[in-house]
């Protein structure tokens, strides 16, 4: 999904854990290749210079620190960078898939998520209560209302979405949140 929003002038190579580097856009109808899928099991295309490899090599790339950035969703994230995104005991277990490998292996871990749960509860918490995906692994949290970085001393609010007050962000965040001295308005594209 993120790949749909990368500006054309950016030179970005997409890795997909099932064994491909250089994932391209979705194919036109009739051009689908059932042997060319992304990790969400959708048919995709391969860009010029792309490559295929098996699962062991794919995760050697991941764990070996060769991937610059991974972008994931979250159910809970804590002020110390702990992440939970794969199971709610008694209600929902999806499976960790490659997420536990990605969060320890990628150079930078970015979360994109709603700031609060569907019930309005904070998802950025003092301590995660759900089963963890990784400990102290998150670098950046991007929500519908805020841009926050995880620093050694805790969370730092750096940008706020247009029309949202600082107080609203603080109220919707359970974990302690410091405010950057150069706090800015978030740039939001259509």
């Amino acid at each position, binding site marked *: 999904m993120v790949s749909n929003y990368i500006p054309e002038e950016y030179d970005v190579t997409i890795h997909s*854990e099932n064994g491909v580097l250089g994932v391209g856009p979705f194919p036109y109808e009739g051009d689908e290749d059932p042997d060319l899928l992304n990790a969400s099991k959708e048919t995709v295309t391969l860009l010029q210079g792309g490559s295929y490899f098996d699962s062991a090599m794919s995760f050697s790339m991941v764990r070996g620190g060769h991937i610059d950035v991974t972008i994931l969703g979250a159910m809970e994230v804590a002020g110390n960078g702990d992440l939970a995104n794969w199971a709610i005991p008694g209600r929902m277990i999806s*499976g960790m898939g490659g997420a536990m490998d990605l969060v320890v292996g990628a150079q930078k871990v970015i979360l994109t998520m709603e700031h609060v749960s569907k019930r309005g509860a904070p998802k950025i918490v003092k301590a995660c209560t759900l089963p963890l995906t990784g400990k102290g692994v998150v670098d950046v949290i991007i929500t519908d209302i805020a841009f926050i970085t995880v620093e050694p001393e805790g969370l730092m609010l750096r940008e706020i979405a247009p029309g949202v007050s600082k107080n609203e962000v603080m109220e919707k965040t359970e974990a302690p949140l410091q405010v950057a001295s150069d706090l800015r308005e978030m740039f939001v594209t259509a």
Partner: protein
Amino acid sequence: MTSDKVYPSSKAAIADIPDGATILLGGFGGAGIPENLLVAMADHPARELTVVTNHAGFGERGLAVLLRQGKVRKIICSYAFHRSAFVFRELYLEGKIELEQLPQGTMAERIRAAGAGISAFYTPTGVGTQAAEGKETRTINGRDVVLEHPLPGDVAVIKAHRADRMGNLTYRGTAANFNPVMATAAPLTIVEVEEIVAPGVIAPESVHTPSIYVQRVVRGEDLDLRSET
């Protein structure tokens, strides 16, 4: 004289899989699943199987048929509860099947270790999570890591694109996924392919899985079969 590993049918290729076997089953999404071998296994009496595979099957076909038949005692996978894995979910909620979920990279590396003669390895993946529970952890070069052991199979049931009659294999696109590493990690590797060629037709430098890892080759009876779409 070269050995000929080609079997006449999927049924013949899987005929001696025993009860209680651990099966390494290739495939990710709809790509690289040995569909015809799975159809043959549905007609085969082997029960109490442990199946190691990336996810717990989609829809009603393929692996789901074996699950429905009650032939699978345990699934070891990285992602069990996709919404379309409803056959597995039903059995799991009824307590009729065991589940062990592993991080996908750890699963791949454990299978690789089994095939490569590695007794165990330390990895940072899963430290401080349920995936590390009950396992030795330590700090190496300032990093917390967990000890993981090999994950071998009794039989690898995999899919490749092409084989020669000696069992040299090539894969196509993302249909490789777990298949190459699973080929190395069982004493009996059974491969379904789309095309069988004479030795030498696959250029030596283009072989993905060398023939030493392959015991049986069969051309899939129905090449359009897709249990997951």
